[in-house]
Structures are given as structure tokens and as C-alpha cells.
């Protein structure tokens, strides 16, 4: 537990009480808050932010689902109720800039909130990492992933949905690892199977699970690490790797975790 004691996680309410405002709001998201695997990613992001002395805050118990799964499932009403609730909170704190740990939150906040009155500059955590590296606020020289084979699985809602392909890759370049591309990557990347609210239901009848198809493609490259940028992709790819009994040799890690581990944070 000692490592966790170092985590400094102020809330917006804390800042407000001090009459200050943070550089950026860290939108943790539902998976990042509640899913055991995703919580580790959240902590990795916090460790990096702490290490780089980024003045950030979370909403804590005032955060609520962005409404993404409801919207993609067709429940526009529930989505907009969630959006309005969150916008009221965000605008109340006069939030200007947001970093998310999840491409779905990123997409929804960035693209779908403005028309409902929520205007913020929204970045995905890999974009923030790139920024911190570029500005020298964090530095990495190789580290534990030096020479390791890493392949990145593009999250649909970061890649195709928002044309962000380079940020995660340019962050990983700092690891001195061997970056491999799958045949279907970037704009042609194959979904992990979780999007569009599939995460919350049984898949329709078919002859294969999407995550198996995708993991198979990743594993064909014999990587040491399958890098992801989304907590849902993480679950799907982790399950896929287990399906092929490769969990002892192939790790599924978020880009933030790669950076945190490389820095021994």
C-alpha cells in the first residue's frame, strides 16, 4: 500500500475551497473508477501527473457516466440527461481543459457535449503524455521496455472516430522498444469488439468473438506487450490473450502504464 500513499489526487472541490483552479481536469470515467484492471491505469496516469507536477484535479464523487454507452445503444434521452448533469457540474467549476483516461469519454466530451452547452478543450491521456514528453516535463530514457516488441491496438474512438493515430505511437517511441504494426492498424484498425455498448451485452450469434480475432492478429507478431489506450480494449485484449494461454508471456498494458513502468513510478 505504500506506493499508493504517494498518490496525490485533489478534487475540484478541494481547489475551489482554496480559491484556486487546476491546469486540467482528469476525467477518470466509469471503468477507470470501478473496474479493477482499469483502476491500475487510472493510478498510472495519476503517478505520471504527480511526477510531472501537473496541477490537476478529479471530480471524484461528482463525476458521472458521460452517457456514451447509453447513446451508442440508442438511448439518446438517457445520454442527454447524463450530459446535462455533467455539464452543469463542469460549468459550475468553470472547467476549461479535460484529459480523459478513456477514448469513449474523450469522444463524447469533445464532440457531443458542445452542442449541449459544454465547451472544453478535451485531450486523451496519450495526447497529454505526448505533450508532457515534448515539453520535457517528463523524460524517459529507455527503461524496462528497451528492445521489447510492442504492438499498439488503435481504439476506434481515438483513431477512426477522431483521427488520433500518432500521439500514442510517438509516446511509445521513447521506450526504445521495437514498435510493430498489425496488418490492420490506424485507420484500418480492427475493433476489439467492445464498442457500441457491446461491452454490456452478450455478442450476437456468430462464429467467433471479435476480441479473439483481434488478439490472434496481435499475437501473430509475437509481441512482448500489446499496448492499448482504452480500458475496454484492455479487457477485451486481456481476455483474448488468455484465450490463447499467452498471459504469461504477453502483457496487455495501457500506454500510460508503459510510461509509468518505464519510469519505475
Amino acid at each position, binding site marked *: 500500500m505504500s506506493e*499508493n500513499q504517494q*498518490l496525490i*489526487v485533489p*478534487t475540484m472541490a478541494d481547489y475551489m475551497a482554496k480559491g484556486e483552479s487546476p491546469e486540467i481536469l482528469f476525467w*477518470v470515467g*466509469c471503468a*477507470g*473508477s*470501478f473496474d479493477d484492471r482499469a483502476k491500475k491505469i487510472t*493510478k498510472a496516469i495519476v503517478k505520471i501527473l504527480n511526477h510531472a507536477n501537473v496541477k490537476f484535479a478529479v471530480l*471524484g*464523487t461528482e463525476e*458521472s*457516466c458521460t452517457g456514451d*454507452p*447509453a*447513446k*451508442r*445503444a*440508442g*438511448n*439518446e*434521452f*438517457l445520454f*442527454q*440527461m*447524463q450530459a*446535462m*448533469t455533467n455539464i*452543469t457540474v463542469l460549468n459550475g467549476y468553470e472547467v476549461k481543459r479535460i484529459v480523459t483516461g478513456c477514448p469513449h469519454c474523450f*469522444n463524447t466530451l*469533445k*464532440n*457531443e457535449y458542445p452542442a449541449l452547452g459544454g465547451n472544453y478543450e478535451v485531450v486523451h491521456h496519450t495526447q497529454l503524455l505526448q505533450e508532457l514528453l515534448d515539453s520535457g516535463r517528463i523524460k524517459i530514457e529507455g527503461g524496462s521496455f528497451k528492445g521489447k516488441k510492442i504492438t499498439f491496438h488503435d481504439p*476506434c474512438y481515438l483513431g*477512426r*472516430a*477522431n483521427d488520433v493515430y500518432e500521439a500514442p505511437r510517438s509516446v511509445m517511441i521513447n521506450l526504445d522498444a521495437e514498435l510493430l504494426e498489425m496488418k490492420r492498424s490506424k*485507420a*484500418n484498425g*480492427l*475493433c476489439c*469488439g*467492445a*464498442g*457500441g*455498448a*457491446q461491452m*454490456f*451485452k*452478450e*455478442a*450476437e*450469434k*456468430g462464429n*467467433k*468473438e*471479435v476480441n*479473439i*480475432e483481434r488478439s490472434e492478429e496481435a499475437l501473430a507478431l509475437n509481441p512482448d506487450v500489446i499496448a492499448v489506450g482504452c480500458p475496454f480494449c484492455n479487457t477485451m485484449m486481456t481476455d483474448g490473450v488468455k484465450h490463447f494461454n499467452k498471459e504469461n508471456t504477453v502483457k496487455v498494458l495501457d500506454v500510460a502504464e508503459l510510461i509509468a513502468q518505464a519510469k519505475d513510478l
Partner: protein
Amino acid sequence: MASSIIFILLFLGGAVFFTINARKVRRNILLGKEINRTDKFSERVKIMSLVALGQKKMFERPIPAILHLFLYVAFVITQIELIEIIMDGSIGSHRMFRASLGGFYTFMVSFIEILSVLAFIGTIAFLARRNLLKVPRLVKNELNGWPKLDANLILISELTLICFIFMMNGADEVLYSQGLSHAANLGDGSLGLSISSHLGPMLFGGMSPEALHMIERIGWWGHLVMVLGFLNYLPYSKHFHILLAFPNVFYSNLEPKGKFTNMESVTNEVKAIFDPSFVPPIVDPNTPMRFGAKDVTDLSWKQLLDSYTCTECGRCTSACPANITGKLLSPRKIMMDTRDRLQEVGKNMDTNKGEFKEDGKSLLGDYITPEELWACTSCNACVQECPVNIDPLSIIMDMRRFMVMEQSSAPTELNGMFTNIENNGAPWQFSQADRLNWKNE
């Protein structure tokens, strides 16, 4: 004289018939709901030049792209020749531009001939890909029946058309060398056509002048009939994309692909809940309010234009994670179903004096099943792949909205997820009060 009259009647008949059918398609498309796609004019022109004219997305797959380019360029350039055909046909002249344009004429017709040969090769390759090599995306179930026949008919008529062109030019070359062609004799002994000056003597050398004239005329009239026939076939065929690709790409969605529409009708209701003083805009009580799409008339005109533009190439389906893993969903089928239903609605209107008579059918249920719609991961691969910027995902989403908000027919697990979000602000059963617990774990 008689031939001029026949020509003019044939030509006008073809043009009028096409106009009637094209207007029906236009009427059908405009049955769709309003959506604004007229902003950002210069960006739209740019995307049209790149994607429609420049075939940018086609080149993601170079081999079919090059073969397709042969057909496409040949098609566009050959239309220039049509001007001369119309002139010759109406006034009874023969190669009327030859004398006045001189070397440029020879160059143009020669160029068209070379393109025609390339198009011939491309067409054969396409027939082979469909019928012999059986490229997976070109032989999927949804293509059985008419779509398969349609594709082959187009390719075969393309071949026929090219044969007519070479009959016309080849026979004329032989006649010209004997001083018997009706074209202006410039004393040069050959029309100088790149392909036909060689092919003509090979195929038709030694034939009698009567036979040669006959072949030349069959080629000429055959060419004309094929072009007019083709034109009138378009509105019944996936081949309509040769015209509709341009407006369809012009009216593309220019927003990030992940940005789904926020339904305004819902916004008004939600705003009224949050702010009791909010007065929602007055809605015309005659337009029935419906959340999402059950039938084609609930879709936007752009989604309907998409359906007529679809080339049935299946690039979307071959990239669809649901389809790849054996689910029922195929984004191409979504587009084909939308068009088929829209055609059905249009025919219904034609037989009922322009009014739609309720037929008890709808796009959802009779054409597209919930199982297909629930298989979508909203990954946007289909949208990314489509060479003519069609958006099958938006139709899937609109139909999900109908299923959820009008029919409450979402799969049980999703209803559970909705309840969780409503009660706890998360898709799982965790209390919002525990949202920051990770910090101390």
C-alpha cells in the same frame, strides 16, 4: 433522312425516359428528413475532387483501383465522342469533326481507343474476380439474385459497347483505305486511329464494301443504343453511383466520425426538465413525432442518397468486425435494404397517384432485423472504408434509437445498463459515492 428521324426519336426517347426515372429517384430521396449539408462549400468541393473525382479512397486497394480507373476514365472520356455521334446522327454527317479538328481529332479518337482497350481488360478482370476468383466480398449472400446479375450485366454491356466501338472504327478504317468511307477524304489513306488502323484490317480486311458498311453501321447504332440503354438502366442499378458519387461525396459528413448527432427533439425535452422556464419550440402537430428510424421516411435525405449511391462493392462489409466474425450484420446489406425499401415506397406512391398507401411494412423488421442492428460495435470501419463516403453506421444508430426509445426493445442486459446509469451514474452497479475509492485501495 429517315435515319436522322429514327436517331432523333431514339435519342429524345432515351433522354426523356431517363429524366422521368431520375426525377422519381430524386423525389424518393427527398422523402427523407431535412439535414443541413450546405455549409463549408470549399471544403466540400475539395473532398469531392479528392474522393469522387480523384478516387482517393479506392487506392487503398491498388489492384481493383487501377482496373476501376480504366473503366472510369474510359467512361468519362468516351462521352466526348458522344457529341459527334449526336451531331452525325441528327444531320446525317459522318465524322463531322474530323476535317475541322484534323490531328487533334485523330489524337482524341485514338486516345479513346486506347482507353477502350484498357477498359476491356479491366472489365474482363472484374468478371473474373466476381465469377472465377470469387473474391469474398463480391460473392456474399446479400448479393445473390438480382445484385449479382446486375453486376454481371453491367460488365457484359461494357464489353459489348467496346466491341461496337471497334466494329465502327475498324470497318471504317478499311473502307477509308479503299476510299469508300463516308468520312471526309483528306487523301491520307488512313483515319490514323491508334488501335483500329491495325485491328480493322486484321478483322475485316478482304470483306466486301457492303459488308463493311453494314458492320460500320451496326457498330455505330449499337454504340448509341448501348449508351442510351445504359443511361436508362442506371436508376435501376448499383451503377447509378457513376452519377451520384459526386453529390454524395459533396454532401459528406465533415464532422469527426465519432460525433453522433444529438437529437434535437430529445434536447428540448431534457432542457425542459432541467429548466422549467424553458419553452420548447412549437412542433407542427401534423408531423408525427418519432424518435429514431423505423422506416426509410424517418431517415435523412442524405442517408437515402447514400443508399442510391452504394456501389455494392462490399468494402464496408469486409472491414466490419461483426461480419468478419460471422454475425448477421453487413453494412452493405443495410444500404441495399434501405434502397430496396425506398424503391418499394416509391413504387407504392407511383401506383397511388403520388400518395403513399400504408402497406404494413417497414425497413425495420421486414428488411433489417434487430439481430443485425445489435451486432454493431459502432467502430466506424464501414464509414472509413466506403469509397463514396456512405455512412451505414448512422442508419444503424437511428434504428437502434427507434428500438430503444419507441419500442423499448433493447436486449435485457442493455436495459440493466441503462438502469445503472440512471441510478448510479455508471453502467455497472456501483454507487456514485464510491467513485473515488480507487485512490485509497
